[in-house]
């Protein structure tokens, strides 16, 4: 081992009297940095492979025909694996949604900011509390104290604009990105 140490000494440190850090330190740092970059670059495809694949992204938007939905009716469609509530609101629903003192709301938002056309309310049917699907789509469902939706899991009440009014949910039901393709059809996503 004495020989080995001697070899390391002559090769490892810079020439006698040379100023600055030894050459071996620089080589070590450069090698380690190169290896770290290599491993990082190699890790990226593995991380990226866990992102949604092309076949999942291909199903990322859903088109809905609104024509058969009568006023007062609602349908639920699947979009990105989650329920989307589409409700054809009656004039009474709309009036109830507009006639609210925003200052009293836990998550203040005017009804006009939540719809593109007042009679069509489109939003994610996922309670903002812990992700249950609220009741209120079917005529026989309990609709809560504000005539909108009621989440049976922990008792959140939503109004006819899908805004949280009472209960543990922190935010209004989320409105997804959607566009009217024609007067009576939309594309969600």
């Amino acid at each position, binding site marked *: 081992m*004495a*020989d*080995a140490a001697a070899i390391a000494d002559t090769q490892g440190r810079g020439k006698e009297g040379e100023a600055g850090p030894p050459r071996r330190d620089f080589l070590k740092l450069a*090698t380690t940095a190169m290896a770290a970059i290599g491993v990082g670059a190699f890790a990226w*495809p*593995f991380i*990226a*492979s866990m992102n949604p*694949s092309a076949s*999942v992204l291909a199903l990322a938007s859903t088109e809905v025909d609104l024509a058969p939905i009568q006023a007062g009716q609602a349908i639920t469609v699947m979009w990105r694996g989650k329920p989307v509530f589409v409700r054809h609101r009656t004039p009474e629903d709309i009036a109830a949604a507009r006639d609210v003192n925003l200052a009293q709301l836990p998550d203040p938002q005017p009804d006009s900011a939540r719809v593109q056309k007042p009679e069509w309310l489109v939003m994610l049917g996922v309670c903002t509390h812990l992700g249950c699907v609220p009741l209120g789509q079917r005529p026989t469902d309990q609709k809560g104290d504000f005539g909108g939706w009621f989440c049976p899991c922990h008792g959140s009440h939503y109004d006819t604009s899908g805004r949280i009014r009472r209960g543990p949910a922190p935010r209004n039901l989320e409105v997804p990105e959607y566009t009217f393709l024609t007067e009576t059809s939309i594309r969600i996503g």
Partner: protein
Amino acid sequence: MVGLHKSEFKNPVVRWIDQRLPIPSLLQKEYAQFPTPKNFNYFWNFGALAMVNLVIMIVTGIFLAMHYTPHTAYAFDSVERIMRDVNYGWLLRYIHMNGASMFFIVVYIHIFRGLYYGSYKAPRELLWMLGVVILLLMMATAFMGYVLPWGQMSFWGATVITNLFSAIPIVGPDIVVWLWGGFSVDNPTLNRFFSLHYLLPFVIVGVVFLHVVALHITGSNNPLGIEPKGPQDTIPFHPYYTIKDTFGLCIYLIVFAFLVFFAPNFLGHPDNYIPANPLVTPAHIVPEWYFLPFYAILRAVPDKLGGVLLMFGSILILFVLPWLDTSPVRSMRFRPLARPFFWMFVISCVVLGYAGAMPAEGIWVTISRVGTAYYFMYFLVILPLLGKLERPLPLPDSIAAPVLRGGGPIPAGAAAKPMEKA
């Protein structure tokens, strides 16, 4: 002994851990200071390369399993989905596919290294036998992995290999039904193969650990095949062999990357891109290249049971090799008579591999038989006899002797080659 470990680390955090769980000390001792013969050549890279390859296979495999469906109705499509839809899925699968081939290339070179330099001889018999266990586990894992894409070669390969067990007298057919979980290779077979294909690599990790522990008890063999006689014959593992292994690793990765990016299907079989069909057997069934020599041995024997026994025997014989080779000299460098027989053995393995890829008819059957005969002759006749008949060249006094001035008298025949390596 109870009480904190005496740590020599200065960093307070490392020291605190080391006192309670002395893994840093262990690594320091076994991978940094570890005295290693100073005369390794590049054939001593392949153990480390195999370890890296195992890690690559496990990591790519875990990520592929996130996208794969082990069901006969979905398996093939899920693999195609990995290739087309999953982000970098093509890369993961091509690394995994070609990684299997790279693994066998590396491990076969590692084994031939051991055969040439006598690394299996006392006191390293158990180290060698653990290596044979790893080889068997690798073969089982590779075979079951090849079944998972559920292409034609997957299905018919699985059918042929599982049917080998039907050669066992009396209980054979029952064993095959048990292996299949049905009356043919079908969904239950695919499910259990997936489960075992995921399990076995971790068993390999366990045996590799034992392999490395055994290595660190006996120490490494070296190209001269003589034990280090003192500190002048060894150098610390780090940085001398970490850097040598890193250089070898770079070369290995270049070859690996060439396969993955420029010839990903070169070593595969196009028929496996046809979905499995239990009603049609492909005209010419061949296993993956790394099984071809053993496949040739199987087909060389005209008797079903005999062929199966010889095929398994060709690997199991490695377990008793330490006791078949009677020569006390390890390295072939000092065995002038054994050397040509060794190279003949290498050629017989390559020829068997080639014959295994050819149709089982005409001249290829004869060639397979000659190759098989030599394969077994080498272990059962040549090596046991050579130990008694051969007059080995004189061994150098120590590893350092041939290269250091005043290192003692240098036997003429033995000195030439070690000097080149220095």
